[in-house]
């Protein structure tokens, strides 16, 4: 946590800020999703309350908070009320472990711009997000409703299946950077493309040194599996309206429903954040290194503390732009593609994505060994 009171305080405040960032991003995303869907489907979307319908978020919040609070008669009370609270945990813990900017050097202190720096970053994030299946099962079973139970079973079966493809697809990335740590991965992706093969150093000046250029297949598999993990269209079989009313949250309303919403958007943000971190250079500005940005900031600021703060801020903005882009893709895909059938979904997961991810892992291992071996 830190060595003295100042550092501990800042680190605690940081935890709260990351949580608030995640929660506060949700209304904006909901607005974006509705306006975006309107734009894609050639209609207006919410445009009555406030400029561009932005105040709709506040109106929604009031609606959620003042709705009648009820639970179905057949529900198991404990699980029914616990599920929405648990829904927040995976997204929050995962999102807090992703670096959002270059570390801030302030005097003798170093503050990473993230909730906490976990040594085995990616293993931790996969671990906590795999707990997401429980919230869905608790909600589905606790509601005492057959639609909810069926939806929950579908959702958790889907989450487990796609977790395999998701986990395997990033093994290549982990082998390439030789680390589980997200900060080290980002550090390896700065500047323009440079790599060592067969004892030679190959460099280009027109491509950024991003993971996607080394592991394109992994990027595709990871991003599609992430859609399935967060139960978004085209994989939202769990809440197929035509068959299951609304799946595991059929019986939920008001603020409990909103908590599930925040959980789902949290999953999306973790997935987008990981996508940026693994394949798109993390918080780095394309074609530049952290050091170059720091030198530029030194020219503007008098002190090294200020320059470091400016560097962190610039990187934070760069990360947010990249994150926003991937969140927009989530929304874009949702309103463009139709839903899969359930057997198609399982076939895609087990018979297509898993073998390709496995092949990618093996080929990457061989290539990494071959190019770094001294022949």
């Amino acid at each position, binding site marked *: 946590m830190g060595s003295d009171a100042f550092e501990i305080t800042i680190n605690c405040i940081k935890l709260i800020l990351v949580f608030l960032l995640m929660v506060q991003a949700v209304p904006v995303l909901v607005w974006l999703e509705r306006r975006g869907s309107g734009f894609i489907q050639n209609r207006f979307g919410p445009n009555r309350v406030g400029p561009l319908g932005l105040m709709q978020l506040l109106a929604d919040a009031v609606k959620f908070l003042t709705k009648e609070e009820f639970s179905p008669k057949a529900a198991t009370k404990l*699980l029914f009320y616990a599920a929405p609270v648990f829904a927040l945990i995976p997204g929050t813990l995962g999102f807090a472990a992703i670096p959002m900017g270059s570390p801030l050097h302030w005097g003798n202190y170093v503050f990473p711009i993230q909730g906490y720096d*976990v*040594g*085995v970053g990616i*293993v*931790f994030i*996969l*671990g*906590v997000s*795999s*707990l997401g*299946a*429980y919230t869905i*099962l*608790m909600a*589905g*079973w606790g509601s005492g409703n057959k639609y909810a*139970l069926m939806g*929950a*079973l579908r959702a*958790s*079966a889907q*989450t*487990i299946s796609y*977790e395999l493809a998701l*986990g395997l697809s990033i093994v290549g990335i982990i082998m390439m950077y030789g680390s*589980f740590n997200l900060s080290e991965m980002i550090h390896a992706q700065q500047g323009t493309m440079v790599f060592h093969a067969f004892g030679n150093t190959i460099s280009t000046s027109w491509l950024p040194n991003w993971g996607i250029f080394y592991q394109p297949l992994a990027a595709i598999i990871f991003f599609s599996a992430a859609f399935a993990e967060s139960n978004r269209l085209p994989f939202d079989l769990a809440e197929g309206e035509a068959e299951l009313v609304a799946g595991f949250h059929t019986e939920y309303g008001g603020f409990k429903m909103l908590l599930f919403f925040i959980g789902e958007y949290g999953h999306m943000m973790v997935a987008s954040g990981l996508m940026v971190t693994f394949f798109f250079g993390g918080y780095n500005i394309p074609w530049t290194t952290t050091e170059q940005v720091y030198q530029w900031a030194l020219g503007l600021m008098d002190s090294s503390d200020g320059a470091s703060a400016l560097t962190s801020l610039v990187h934070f903005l760069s990360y947010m732009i990249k994150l926003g882009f991937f969140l927009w893709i989530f929304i874009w895909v949702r309103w463009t593609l139709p839903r899969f059938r359930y057997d198609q979904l399982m076939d895609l997961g087990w018979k297509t994505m898993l073998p390709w991810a496995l092949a990618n892992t093996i080929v990457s291992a061989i290539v990494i060994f071959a190019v770094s071996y001294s022949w």
Partner: protein
Amino acid sequence: MTADSFLFWMLAAVTLCSGLAVVVISNPIYSALCLAMSMVGVSALFATLGAYFIAGVQMIVYAGAVLVLFVMVLMLFDLKTELVTFSRGKISGLLKIATVGVLAGFLAGAFSMTIEFAEKTGAATTVPTPDTSKALGTLLFTKYILGFETLGILLLVIAIGVVGLARSKGGTHAKH
């Protein structure tokens, strides 16, 4: 009490209490959820010992995948009839008492041996190392390669056996 020992006692209490709840609670769903809770507790205990990779894998594999399957299967049971079948009968009662006796014996043996061992060697001093996953991988693929590969083959045999069993009577497309 230092922060480390507070963390240890809290996590140990959570793990043991939820472990106890698994056997005490009669509703299998709550039992399975408690088992998941104790798995998370064990994972956190690994993390306090500096074995971060094992902690993460424990969370992904046990809490995240194996137990989710348990819970899923349990949710499809008709719990009322299952409860009656499993909690009545003389033979099952005798079995329960016998199991408790064996468990108590094991526990007593484990405690006495631990105390004896601890008196001989003194308290263990562990220094958490920052990254143990590399060392773990090297050990698994050099010193313990035979056991590792054997386990892999065992799991493969199990997987093939399960598929064979499931398909032996026509699988999901069986006609009754």
